């Protein structure tokens, strides 16, 4: 954790950590505390007075069917994005690990979407799927699917899932590839000598050895889907139609900035914070890849 040999100085270490600590206090801890505090109050629309209401904001949220629907939407969204992005990238990583020729070429072509912002990924897929002129919507129509994400909530949700997963494939691919490359060749060769075929080898040796990577990526993908995709939803469907794609993060923003209901927005923030804390805990407790204590 620390060096055996250290420097002695009374003031210097404090000066060195000062900028980072100042920013965390002002822009992280203070706002988080504010969110916690105002989640117990109801504020009037002009911010002149506020009233202590204890848990009422929370109670109202959990009695609100549309908030519960958002929970469900977020869950469906998160799990679908994670499963889709991870299975595609696992397939690609296994293939990329096998090729000898042109390996770098393939890798380059597969990793660049990492740099594309979620908002842009959303906008591009929004264009591809546009019911009146999108090319994918046109192909779908030719095979008999009537695509209109402006009216059909399920299709709108599918649209944001595909766009979010598309952007995340590169990230997962790199981690799966790193995981695959760290599996000792001798294990695979031993299994091959025992006449295990490629499919069998994958399911009995490779996949179990990838479990830490898979679990780590699952948490990362869920965090990505729950939080980073705000931009994707906001730039395209804006939570609609009705509230078919209004995931929890989008709702916090909408309730606070558009609806001006600070108490409820703060309570939603606190619930989300609980969610992140839980997921970070799971990640560090069970994955233990990130830091050594």
């Amino acid at each position, binding site marked *: 954790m*620390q*060096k055996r*040999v*250290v*420097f*002695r*100085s*009374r003031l*210097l270490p*404090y000066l*060195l950590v000062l*900028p*980072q*600590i100042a920013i*965390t206090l*002002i*822009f992280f*801890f*203070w*706002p*988080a505390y504010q*969110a916690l505090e*105002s989640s117990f109050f109801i504020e009037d629309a002009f911010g002149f007075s506020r009233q202590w209401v204890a848990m009422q904001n929370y109670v109202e949220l959990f009695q609100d069917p549309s908030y519960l629907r958002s929970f469900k939407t977020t869950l469906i969204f998160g799990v679908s994005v994670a499963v889709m992005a991870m299975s*595609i990238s696992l397939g*690609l990583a296994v*293939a990329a690990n*096998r*090729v000898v020729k042109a390996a770098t070429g*393939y890798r*380059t072509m*597969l990793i660049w979407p990492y740099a*594309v*912002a979620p*908002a*842009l990924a959303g906008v*591009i897929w929004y*264009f591809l799927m546009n019911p009146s*002129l999108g*090319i994918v919507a046109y192909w779908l129509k030719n095979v008999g699917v009537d695509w209109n994400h402006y009216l059909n909530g399920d299709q709108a949700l599918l649209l944001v899932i595909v766009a979010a997963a*598309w952007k995340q494939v590169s990230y997962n691919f790199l981690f799966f590839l*790193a995981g695959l490359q760290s599996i000792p060749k001798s294990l*695979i*060769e031993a299994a*091959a000598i025992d006449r295990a075929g490629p499919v069998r080898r994958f399911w009995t040796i490779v996949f179990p050895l990838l479990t830490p990577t898979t679990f780590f990526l699952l948490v*990362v993908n869920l965090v990505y889907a729950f*939080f980073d995709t*705000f931009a994707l939803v*906001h*730039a*395209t469907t804006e939570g609609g139609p009705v509230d078919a794609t209004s995931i929890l993060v989008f709702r916090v*923003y909408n309730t*606070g*900035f558009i609806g001006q209901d600070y108490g409820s*927005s*703060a309570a939603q*923030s606190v619930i*989300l*914070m609980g969610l992140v*804390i839980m997921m970070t805990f799971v990640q560090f407790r069970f994955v233990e890849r*990130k830091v050594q204590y």
Partner: protein
Amino acid sequence: MVENRPFLTFLTHAVLIIGVLFLCFPVWMALVASTHGPEALSSSPIPLWFGDRAWENYSQLLVGGLPEAGGVPIGSMMFNSLIMALVITFGKIAISIISAYAIVYFQFPFRMGFFWMIFITLMLPVEVRILPTFDVVVKMGMLNTYAGLTVPLIASATATFLFRQFFLTIPDELVEAARIDRAGPLRFFWDILLPLSRTNIAALFIILFIYGWNQYLWPLLITTDESLYTVVMGIQRMVNSGESLPVWHYIMGTAVLAMIPPVIVVVAMQKLFVKGLVESEK
């Protein structure tokens, strides 16, 4: 390769080619659409090959500006994005490397307290404290300023951890040698630690640059003045422009322009990027 199976080799390449097509096709369509005029994009199916309006579209976007985006040229939005990305990147690296240095190389009260405070920021992404953070920025008078756009995002637990992990692998003998030669802590940092950290800094630079360039929610909150819009955030104004139909050839042109700088960074510095990504998440 363990054994030679021609069919499997064929399958491998097929999977990879389909994967590449799946990832490249959307951007291909964006590129194609940005080279056509509005007429070509008014009826389905839209063309799959380039049109002849590339020059007009892009020059209009870069310097002319669009009423849908508040009349601000995309060129100036990209300039804002660049400033934002660079300030965030250098800021994060600078304050993280010095706080990691303090935590690893000094013994002082509350050392671990500070470490945990930095750690906890991981659990407080902007998205979960939107309103109160916005309030803080308003109270400090930083709305519509570059400072407001960048300073609140500069804290970085990830970068601090990465530097801390790296410093822990540096042999103690270096510090001993430096102390025997009467080098003070600042001198040791500047002349020994910083040069040793070069690769780590470069790898972090790539990841943080992309992070900074792709920010969306924060500029959306902090900028109401159109001259401070960043390009990733500004595109949203064109898509959801209310009454009028979206002008897709301009929107796709903007999307292409907005993704060029980060994609170039990733592709050009691929090796460092892969190393930085896999290590910083460990």
